[in-house]
């Protein structure tokens, strides 16, 4: 216990730094919304065809909810403002109407059908992993990931590379704090890739928001996913299913590279395995 308290002290000081607190409470939300923009507020559009469709679906439903909200809350606030006793109104006595009940049962139903149609089409597309050009097996462990390139007979473990010191506030936190690994998953762009997801101990979940991919990694089960990335880049994610003490410390880093660069990388890997 005293050990814990001692470790706490310098941190308390840094946390209760008044300037930072004031900035956090007043300036940052405004500033961050303006500077960092949409990224910190909304789902990423992502870099695959599927992720863009999912984003559009998300925004469609969001706007439908906003419109319904404006209508319902608008009626409510109008009523709150106008139909108050202090304005001297007397209450009406109506208390039922089959017609309006039918109307507000049927209209939401139609809206739901309108939502269900694109959702179903998207889902069917997402679940079709046929005609994939290569396969990678992803295995979750407490608390790291393993990637096996099944077409090339090699694989490796991928650990968090953020230092303990920066987690414990004893060193500066880098730009990709907690979202960086020692050996990232390298995959080619413009290639339909099948991902097989499983786990070796408890249930994990492999989630990369930019690819709109999330699937549970379950011991004894193999789940299937697919992706096809358009733009080269680094995409980061995290384990999404509580898997024990270091659940928050097993990130995912995906490097999408052009196909020739990928082939060169594979050759280097297989060569080092052969040695």
């Amino acid at each position: 216990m005293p050990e814990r308290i001692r470790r706490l002290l310098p941190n308390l000081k840094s946390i209760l730094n008044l300037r930072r607190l004031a900035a956090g409470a007043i300036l940052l939300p405004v500033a961050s919304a303006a500077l960092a923009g949409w990224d910190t507020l909304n789902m990423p559009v992502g870099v695959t065809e599927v992720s863009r469709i999912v984003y559009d679906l998300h925004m469609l439903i969001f706007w439908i909810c906003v419109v319904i909200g404006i209508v319902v809350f608008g009626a409510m606030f109008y009523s709150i403002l106008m139909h108050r006793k202090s304005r001297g109104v007397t209450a009406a006595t109506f208390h039922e109407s089959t017609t309006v009940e039918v109307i507000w049962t049927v209209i939401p139903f139609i809206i739901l059908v309108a939502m269900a149609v694109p959702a179903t089409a998207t889902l069917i597309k997402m679940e079709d992993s046929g005609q994939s050009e290569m396969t990678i097996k992803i295995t979750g462990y407490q608390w790291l990931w393993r990637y096996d390139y099944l077409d090339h007979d090699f694989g490796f473990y991928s650990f968090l590379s953020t230092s303990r010191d920066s987690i414990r506030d004893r060193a500066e936190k880098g730009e990709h704090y907690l979202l960086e690994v020692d050996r990232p998953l390298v995959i080619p762009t413009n290639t339909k890739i099948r991902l097989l997801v499983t786990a070796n101990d408890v249930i994990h979940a492999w989630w990369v928001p930019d690819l709109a991919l999330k699937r549970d990694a379950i011991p004894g089960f193999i789940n299937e996913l697919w992706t096809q990335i358009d733009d080269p880049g680094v995409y980061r994610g995290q384990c999404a299913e509580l898997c024990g003490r270091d659940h928050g410390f097993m990130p995912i880093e995906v490097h999408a590279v052009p196909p020739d660069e990928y082939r060169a990388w594979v050759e280097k890997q297989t060569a080092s395995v052969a040695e």
Partner: protein
Amino acid sequence: MSEIAAAHDDHHDYHPSGLWRWVTTTNHKDIGTLYLWLAMIMFFIGGAMALVIRTELFSPGLQFVDPQFFNSMTTLHALVMIFGVVMPAFTGLANWQIPLMVGATDMALPRLNNWSFWILPFAFAMLLSTMFMDGGGPAGGWTLYPPLTLQTGNALPFVIFSIHFMGMSSIMGAINIIATIVNMRAPGMHMMKMPLFVWTWLITAFLLIAVMPVLAGGVTMLLTDKFFGTSFFNAAGGGDPVMFQHIFWFFGHPEVYILILPSFGVVSSILPTFSRKPLFGYSSMVYATASIAFLSFVVWAHHMFTVGMPLAGELFFMFATMLIAVPTGVKVFNWVATMWRGSMTFETPMLFAIGFIIMFTIGGFSGLMLAIVPADFQYHDSYFVVAHFHYVLVPGSIFAIMAAVYYWLPKWTGNHYPERLGKWHFWLSTIFVNLTFFPMHFVGLAGMPRRIPDYALQFADYNMLASIGAFGFGFAQLLFLYIVVVTIRGGEKATDQVWEGAEGLEWTLPSPPPYHSFTTPPVVR
């Protein structure tokens, strides 16, 4: 004549005083009070756990607690708030109000009533004691998914046993409520004349009886997997870890309606009173509640869209889940229609009821978004989900409970609560609850997983806001405690009717009502 009879009854009543009164009581009001105080105590314990979580999440990095302890805080916070706060609070309200509202003397099964309450303090003492055991408290999440939960240390059997206790208590409470509603209604109180609070509780009680045994079965299988060599959920032994999730959520989804249906009843009682206008669409409210309860049994797998179900399964659970929006929408529209062209005043219960409708509806919208499977793959297990269920549970269920307490406290105690302080409590709670949970939508969409003790730097600002909000909300609740205590001790005397627009049997009794509510059954026309 009836006065003589009442005096005669009193003479024979055995009224021990002090602690013994509360231990031996079979009176529905005493037991209701016990349930409500238990909920109040657990609310502060569960709230303290939430503040441990929010303290660690105040800024990036690990500063205060070990990740394992953090996980046991999230686990226990959920178990305490669900089983120790919302469920006992609603059972307490049911105990106080159902006999008053249907014109009965007491609950149908008074001794069972005593037992179903007194199990609970022991269950929670046992649950909370696990924090001090070897290996720490349960840290696998309140959903107890294996295999992770099977890694729990000595705490596991105690957690499971305490869940069995809570389940027994809930089932006995539910049996009592059904028996009371079915058998003890005053002459003329037909089913379709019952107040909606009674209706929603009747339906909730059936849900409890249907699903608590399912949870008990599920956790018992965990117990035998851990200690008796079975492999229900162990793939290496031919079992299936996903089966636990199906069993758990077959309990878990009806459970979330157990946590919200009585709120619908509370709000449906309060709105007409302060709008001075009858509830709009009474019968459609009853049918909507029944439809929600029915649908709650066929949507469970929407909690587990990412486990890798077949396409047909995902589609079925998506459509069924979306369908729940229809009866829920009917309820919200009926509430707005009840307020429409009323003559409204805005005392504290009304404020909490209106806050409930708005913020529960926001939680309903995010629930609808979560039903859409392709988008759910992004939302699942992110802070978006945390925002969603806290919107329906805190400014949802908890606000409804507070609305109910403010609404009926003058009836229970005979004293008015301090109105100005009540309004302060409402506004502080509303501001801080939104400051806490609204930013969680943003970080969730931007990619922050739930149940993590530390997070990437881009989530820092909104987490800091949420933590500030959480402390504000927590301390605002001390005001609630203060208001309840001063109202019990005294205050401006309440009339029998208490509220100008109040209608129903409970308002025909004196405030506070006599020890045995209706010694002669009232006649309902």
